[in-house]
């Protein structure tokens, strides 16, 4: 749903998926919402950048799947960092966004016993951790 829009806006998209096919416990629609939210935010972030690249990776580590979404946008200002997961907090103009995207993402991941963090660094890089489904469950 998102990559066709990337192509329209000439945004480079790179996806590196883990070799094994990780299974997690959860709701597919909600998890899809999480990925879409992050990609949509990344798209907004690179809108006015010269270099427009969005990168999505997955990796399996310590019994969890790590999904990272990184964009080549200007990064997240410190003042925003503290409040970025607050409901209704938005940097967009009124009418442009609901300010609920990352908050919803956050609560979906909580229900999934996972979490989302904004990694330190000059670029916006979000890291999602989701526990792997145990073989008995999968």
């Amino acid at each position, binding site marked *: 749903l998102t990559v066709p829009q990337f192509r329209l806006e000439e945004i480079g998209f790179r996806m590196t998926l883990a070799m094994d096919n990780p299974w997690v*416990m959860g709701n597919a629609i909600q*998890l899809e919402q999480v*990925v879409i939210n992050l*990609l949509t935010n990344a798209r907004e972030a690179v809108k006015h950048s010269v270099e427009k690249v969005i990168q999505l990776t997955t990796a399996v580590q310590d019994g969890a799947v790590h999904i990272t979404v990184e964009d080549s946008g200007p990064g997240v200002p410190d003042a925003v960092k503290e409040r970025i997961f607050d409901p209704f907090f938005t940097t967009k103009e009124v*009418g442009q966004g609901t300010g609920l995207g990352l908050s919803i993402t956050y609560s979906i991941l909580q229900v999934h016993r996972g979490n989302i963090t904004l990694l330190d660094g000059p670029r916006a890089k979000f890291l999602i951790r989701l526990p792997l489904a145990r073989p008995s469950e999968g």
Partner: protein
Amino acid sequence: MNPATPLPQVPVWALAVGVTALYVIAGKLGLTLAFIHASVTAVWPPTGIALAACLLFGYRLWPSILLGAFLVNWTTAGSVFTSSGIAVGNTLEAVMGAYLVNRFAHGAQAFHRALDVFKFAGLAGMLATALSATFGATSLALLGYATWADYGSIWFTWWLGDMGGTLIVAPLLLLWILEPGLQWNRPKTMEALLLFGFLVAVGQVIFQDWLPVEWKIYQLPFLSIPLLVWVAFRFTPRETSTATAALAAMAIAGTLQRAGPFAVGTPHDALLLLQIFLNTMAVMGLALSAGVLECQQLLTRVQHRERELQERQQQLVQAAKLASLGEMAAGIAHEINNPLTNIGLLITNVLDRLQTNAGHGNWRRGRRPADDWNPERRRGRSESDHAHAADREGSLMDLHRSLEQVHKAAEITKHLRTFSRRAPERYGPVALHAVIQQAVG
């Protein structure tokens, strides 16, 4: 020890020398206003200076205070011993007062909350000053510079004088040093000038007997209360402490000239009345202005919250709009699915018909449909037959592609519907990469 506002960086030796010098000058000035004994004043400003210095720059300044206090007393009256005793008392008073205020009343920020003002008044104003009074009165009496009979009254006026220094001078210094800038607009400046004019007029009326003698009444000092309330409500603790200090200056000046309501009885009585009045006014002004400040801060916070809530409500409206847009999208996806199914069926029909009619068309030219698929026969066709067949195959190919596109469109609408549907929260094993592929599209 912990000034919250950054102070200009001054070398320690300059600070130390400055505090000693200031202490001596203030002490000397204070002593020119001494009442009973050469060393007892109505308000002892050095106490305020020492306390403010400790609160702003830390306890390490204690040697400056000790030296300053010693110099003041040694050059005024008494011996090395009395001066040492008094100096030790003054130093302990400042260090202990600063420690207690730092520990319990937010240090130099004590005048921003009414509760802290009361703690400041109790701990630094009443408790720590008792140390100085005890050391001072005992030193004087022990070495014969005062009689033991006077011990009680010396102790008491000493204590009240240091309290005045703590409650009137220390806040004045702390508040102006921590916040030196004036940001008044024109009306505010006018109001300040008007207030100051009133204050001076009322001060003169009360303490210089500007009214005819028969109007001289002892309750006149109450006149200063409304002015202090005014400044507390309309300005900050800084201006309030300034008004209190101005009032104190006028009161002391008047009483020393044996004018005003406090110039009654012995000098000792006058001093006592004056000290009690000034300390009461000081605590009232500081507490009131701190309370007003708290209210204002609360109001600002509430207004800020309110603005934030309004913004959030707008975001909520937007979220609701997007939600209904999502439902509409689901509905439209459903509606589009029907025509898509029909188009798919129609294309399939056309494909079927073309494939059967292909035989029919050729049959008219004297061939059986099966010939199309027989390479041997095909070779015998005419040029136009070849062109026609290529044409038809192209059309068939296009129709197949169209059908593929229709299926793709149907797939997208189907996904749109599942995605926007208020999904029952079903949990189960999910292949993550499939989810990501779906999201990426």
